[in-house]
């Protein structure tokens, strides 16, 4: 099996890395403090085509692989998980519209999303549930040629940014708990759309997170994404295609923590000798971090490789996605924890980036399906079929 990146994949990864280091890194403290990504970062990414790496060429995307996308988002997230989050959710948006939408919807939304003129959101979570379509309470009531949407979506990334939002709602004609959840595309900031104050989260600063209030939002019927009652299917496809972004973010956070620990161990001395030379346990901790990172990396890259047309069965893909998400998100937490052991108290103060990485890492296992749900799902696919 060949795990080497192609020349093009290497170059895309390099561009993401250079952009991250030269443009995002000098602004990282500002992003963290203000919990907001400056426009110049998003504009720069748009110019380089980083929002549409794996989108179809005929719709303005790069037409590159998912492997390319994951390696690029990892480089962005090494510097800023928040910027990675914006990129990941936008990618989830255009990938889902491409997969589930009709031609008209593809042409209407995808070119602007890959050009970064607009940035997508995906709204599933509600105050009552983050993973169960049967418990959804946002309603979509049929009214002639329209649907009228009402309710609250919780924790929605990119919801303050201009662009389309894929939203899963319960078709009102369906009885409670009937499970007739359906996906729609709405334009953010349309009439009846409003936002809460931003959530003040522990990490992933810059990744915009709000609750979305929908009050009599009227959308034409052609805004239905896929078939009526396909909510569960949409969720499964989100599972298949969309975990790759969050996996890449977790790898980036993990690598940033590992690199900071190595740099610190080379710099910090004990009685005149760098601790990386002096203490075997420091070298052991760094090796353990490297092992955890490599494990998560190869599971993630294997999943991305599978998405590049190498595995066709959506159930196998969903299982790989779930496993990669659990591995990558737990790897980030474990590596940051071990890095704390190398930095000691310096890891706890904001002068060192590790303190921020701790906040970033702990978000990973909670978003886009918690570890328990993902493992249960993977187990069901393997053993209950």
């Amino acid at each position, binding site marked *: 099996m060949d795990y080497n990146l192609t020349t*093009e994949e*290497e*170059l*895309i990864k390099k*561009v993401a890395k250079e952009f991250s280091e030269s443009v995002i890194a000098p602004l990282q403290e500002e992003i963290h403090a203000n919990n907001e990504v400056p426009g110049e970062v998003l504009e720069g990414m748009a*110019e*380089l*085509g980083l929002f549409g790496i794996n989108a179809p060429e005929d719709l303005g995307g*790069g037409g590159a692989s998912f492997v390319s996308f994951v390696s690029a988002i990892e480089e962005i997230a090494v510097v800023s998980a928040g910027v990675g989050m914006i990129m990941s959710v936008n990618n989830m948006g255009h990938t889902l519209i491409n997969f589930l939408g009709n031609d008209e919807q593809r042409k209407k939304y995808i070119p602007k999303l890959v050009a970064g003129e607009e940035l997508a959101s995906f709204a599933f979570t509600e105050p009552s549930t983050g993973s169960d379509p049967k418990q959804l309470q946002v309603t979509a009531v049929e009214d002639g040629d329209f649907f009228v949407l009402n309710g609250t979506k919780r924790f929605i990334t990119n919801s303050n940014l201009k662009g389309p939002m894929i939203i899963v709602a319960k078709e009102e004609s369906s009885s409670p708990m009937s499970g007739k959840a359906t996906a729609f595309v709405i334009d953010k900031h349309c009439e009846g759309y409003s936002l809460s104050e931003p959530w003040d989260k522990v990490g992933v600063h810059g990744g915009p997170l709000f609750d979305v209030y929908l009050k009599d939002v009227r959308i034409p019927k052609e805004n239905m994404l896929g078939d009526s009652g396909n909510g569960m299917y949409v969720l499964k496809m989100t599972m298949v295609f969309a975990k790759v972004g969050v996996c890449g973010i977790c790898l980036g956070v993990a690598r940033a923590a590992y690199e900071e620990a190595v740099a610190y161990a080379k710099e910090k001395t004990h009685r005149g000798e760098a601790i990386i030379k002096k203490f075997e346990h420091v070298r052991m901790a760094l090796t353990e971090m490297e092992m955890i990172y490599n494990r998560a990396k190869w599971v993630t890259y294997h999943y991305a490789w599978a998405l590049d047309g190498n595995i066709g069965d959506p159930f196998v893909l969903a299982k790989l996605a779930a496993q990669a998400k659990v591995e990558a998100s737990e790897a980030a937490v474990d590596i940051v924890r071990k890095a704390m052991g190398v930095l000691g108290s310096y890891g706890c103060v904001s002068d060192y980036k590790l303190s921020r990485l701790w906040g970033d890492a702990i978000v990973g296992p909670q978003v886009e399906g918690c570890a328990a749900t993902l493992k249960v799902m993977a187990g069901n696919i393997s053993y209950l079929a």
Partner: protein
Amino acid sequence: MKTLNYVVAMKQVPDLQQLRIRDKKPVLTDIPLELGKIDKNALECAVNLKEQHDGEVILVSVGNDDLPETLKDGLACGADRAKFIADNRVDNLQSAQKAELLAKLIEGLDDVSLIFFAEGSADNYSGQVGSRVAEILGYPQVGYASEVKIQGETAIITRALENSYEDIEVALPAVVIVVQDLNKPRLPSVIQILKAGKKPQERIDLADSSYEAAELTVCYENLAPDTDRKMQELSCSSDLIEVLKDLGVLER
């Protein structure tokens, strides 16, 4: 007036960020190759001139079998096509021999205005190749170029000297050897990267270049000199002043 073309000589060098050092020697096994950093400045300069005056940007290069892949970066960064010799035997050639091969590649190109070189490469930094090619082709050469403008049939080139700048007007075609400060190369977009592989690449056989390898120089060792540092621990700035006085660096 006919449109003029810009030639940029770009060299394959190991990615220094990935280099491992063992027993004071670089381990080159499995280290990916990339285009030289200052070569990218030269390319950026040529692409800027092309954007102002039209014409084509042509890469020339002599490298190993992987060269067509390495050159994709240059093609993504704005070059229109490439002409090269890719042969693993050239890894053993010296600067003088590479200059001869590059000159042969350039001789076959039409309407050349400026031929760009970097002041040195990341691996050897011999800094000879540009000047040698200029001599072989019989073109004027301008080194330490920090700004390049085309004015009619000539180029106005600013040279960055130690304490001053010097403007030189030179007839075309000419060889320009650039310094890193002359610009900040732009990053290629994803789409430019993916299209790079589709740009024309003309491969010349080492045998066709009627070149006979001759061993002109032999490199026995290439190491930085050992430095014996004092590593003296000081507790305050007045101690430092005392030490510097003792060394005669500061006057008493």
